[in-house]
């Protein structure tokens, strides 16, 4: 395997990481919005969210990616492969993040909310000043864990031709007729990526896991 081949694997790793990060940046807040809709039992939207979460949690990322990439243009929305990839990961991870946020919300101590209400705080103010600062600490370890899973499922975007790590590895293998070395290097890159996230997760658990736990 040449140095150039190694560089293009690293480039693939860059694509994997940046597309994943974009998916996380969109999916985590979207998940929170979904969770709030369900938590506040917003009419019509809350049940829709329930269906969305259930549906997305059982949809393979590959299938979702194909659906977004091929079907959106049919209904008049032009979308390039990279955007479709980011949308896939964001929509997918949002469903899982919704469940994480929601379990944090449902286990949030009621007394604190009631106390805030007696001080005349409004609903949004209570969420902003009382709930959220504690909520994100409680949820962070689980959210980071979900990010690790997202990195691993991000390989799905190879199916629409995005040149992430696995696709780069396959291409090098096809060019050199020696698929094993680039694959092993690619595997090594994933191991490093995942270990970094596992490390972050352990760190967040130590920092916030107990401190922000449901008390």
């Amino acid at each position, binding site marked *: 395997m040449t140095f150039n081949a190694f560089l293009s694997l690293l480039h693939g790793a860059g694509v994997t990481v940046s597309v994943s990060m974009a998916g996380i940046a969109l999916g985590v807040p979207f998940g929170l919005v979904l969770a709030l809709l369900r938590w506040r039992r917003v009419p019509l939207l809350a049940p829709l969210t329930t269906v969305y979460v259930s549906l997305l949690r*059982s949809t*393979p990322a590959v299938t979702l990616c*194909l659906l977004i990439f091929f079907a959106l243009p049919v209904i008049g929305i032009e979308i390039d492969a990279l955007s479709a990839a980011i949308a896939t990961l964001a929509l997918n991870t949002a469903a899982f993040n919704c469940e994480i946020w929601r379990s944090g919300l449902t286990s949030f101590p009621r007394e604190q909310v009631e106390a805030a209400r007696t001080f005349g705080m409004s609903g949004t103010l209570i969420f902003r000043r009382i709930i959220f600062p504690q909520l994100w600490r409680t949820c962070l370890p689980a959210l980071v864990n979900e990010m690790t899973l997202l990195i691993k499922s991000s*390989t799905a975007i190879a199916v629409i031709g995005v040149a992430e790590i696995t696709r780069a590895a396959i291409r090098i293998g096809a060019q050199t007729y020696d698929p094993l070395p680039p694959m092993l290097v690619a*595997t090594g890159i994933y191991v490093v990526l995942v270990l970094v996230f596992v490390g972050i997760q352990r760190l967040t658990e130590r920092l916030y896991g107990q401190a922000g736990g449901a008390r």
Partner: protein
Amino acid sequence: MIRDVSLIWQNADRLLDGLTNTVILSLVGATLALVFGALVAIALMASNRAVRLTSRGLVDLMRCVPFLMLVYLVYYGLPRLGLRFDSWTAGLVAIVIYNTAYMAEIIRGIWSRLERETIEAGIAFGFHGWKLVARIVMPQIFLAAAPMIGNQLIQIIKDTAFLTIIAVPELTHAANSIQAQYFIPFATFLSAVLLYWALCMVVELGVFVVERIAEKRR
């Protein structure tokens, strides 16, 4: 839209063939992974340090690798070492290897939290070795593990969609080939998504039933 639905209806047998492959791959893969996973869990719980650390390392490594990467390694990599599979078998082999690690970790997690006392009672009554594991330890583990095994089965069902990339004729592959022929991506992929959904619902129903059985026994 009506035309799309009728085209899907005409090609329903192709979708169902894909679904059948998805179900067979998932069920056979999950069952084998569970059996091997139980064996690996025994290694993870072994008193021998070398056995324990080796199996720990392999399981952790496997859990760092994306499923598709393993599929590639089995399908394109192993032939270099003289092991050649057709794509269907390669897919199954990858499912089994990959999920053995996850199942082993599920079983080990529950095993380590299992009450030591019921196992000790087994030893005091003369159970040992394989029989102790098979009659006292594992039944308790499987009853407690049902929800997690169910979740893993759902993960496996979703992972089988990756196998379209090496042209295994599973559900997503079938949907993709229908949409490529008739250019009706929305209807076909939506049908596939709904079928995956239904499949996962069935698994969750199964978990619910096992939970009800387990409820009495703990």
